[in-house]
């Protein structure tokens, strides 16, 4: 197979997958190029879509690759979808941010930072699949510990947890 062909197969796989497709999954299916070459080809594709002025582009999210519509088109696509976009209250968002940076974290640790009870909020974040229960902490009382989910990465278009923006120092209020 030539490069062009491989690239079009990669595209078809990413396109056909229901969820972000990890590079290893692509390699399982087309085993010819080595990992490094494959990554290079995907990078080329991403570059092409970025410059091509199409309605969607190729993105790296949640440990895989996925086509997503471009933000410039959001106004129109929203009309098509009509679904309610994810609604998060300020309280839920703050809680989510704390969990993202402090995971694995217990409820009482979150409450110490926020200064308020977070019971209902945790429940709703679990229901929205943005966070998940990781297990129990090995301390007396064995409280549940929480972390963010793969869905969290998908929703906030993050490659992985290390691509979270760095927690900034507060310089001035």
């Amino acid at each position, binding site marked *: 197979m030539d490069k062009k062909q491989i690239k079009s197969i990669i595209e078809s796989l990413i*396109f056909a997958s*229901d969820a972000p497709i990890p590079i290893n999954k692509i390699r399982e299916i087309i085993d010819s190029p080595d990992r490094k070459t494959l990554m290079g080809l995907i990078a080329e594709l991403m570059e092409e879509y970025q410059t091509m002025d199409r309605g969607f582009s190729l*993105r790296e999210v949640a440990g895989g690759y*996925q*086509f*997503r*519509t*471009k*933000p410039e088109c*959001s106004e129109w*696509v*929203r009309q098509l*979808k009509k*679904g309610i*976009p*994810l609604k*998060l209250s*300020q*309280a839920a*968002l*703050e809680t*989510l*941010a*704390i969990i*993202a*940076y402090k995971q694995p974290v217990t409820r009482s640790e979150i409450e*110490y*930072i*926020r*200064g*308020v*009870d977070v019971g209902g909020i945790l429940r709703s974040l*679990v*229901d929205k*699949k943005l966070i*998940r*229960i990781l297990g129990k902490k090995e301390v007396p009382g064995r409280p549940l510990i929480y972390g963010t*989910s793969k869905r969290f990465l*998908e*929703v*906030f*278009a*993050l490659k992985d947890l290390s691509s979270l*923006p760095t*927690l*900034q*120092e*507060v310089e001035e*209020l």
Partner: protein
Amino acid sequence: MPYNVKLKVFEGPLDLLLHLIKKNEVDIYDIPIASITAQYLEYLDLMKTLNLDIAGEFLVMAATLMHIKSKMLLPPSEYEREELEGEEDPRAELVRRLIEYQRFKDTADKLMSHEILNRDVFTRGIANGASEENQKDLNEISIIELIEAFKRVLKEEPPGKFFYIAIEKMSVNDKITEIIEKMKHTGNIVFQSLFTGIGDKHEVIITFLALLELIRLKVVRVIQATPFGTIRICPINLMDS
């Protein structure tokens, strides 16, 4: 004359304090505690006047503020001064918490400025037919869903099925007899099997005590061939006893 009160909703006492510090344009590392405390309490009063529920956390913070204030007002005694040598500012803990909280507030805002799925960007449309028969992808089932399923099952249990059992507290002696009887039938028994089907903590304890007693009386021997392997209980000349 009617007047409008614009009451900002605060996420909690820390949020309110940050607001007051910003409003007064004071240095967070050198909070004028008396005046900030006064304004904080004023706000709580306003909430009371408006018949708003004041969450317990706001009251706890009020107490904390007043405690800090008193610590800063009272000149330490000679004795305390020595004690206080090298001790930190009474406000330090609060300042740390405020700064930590502010960092996460900023981060939360930053998260919202990301390209958010189904708000700014969308994935390829997938026909709804794909999820046939309410089947759930195993990779997507959370523990919570497992628990919800269990709760559903418990709830669905027809009420007629419940019956009461008079709880009869078993004695260690009863249990000893039961274990010996069991061994007469089957010879060796697996340790775990002593506990299967026991729903009640009392009986678990009784069973264990009975086993200890049997070992002490040298009626049984406990064998484990490999570490973490199956624990077996073997009778010692059971027939003679």
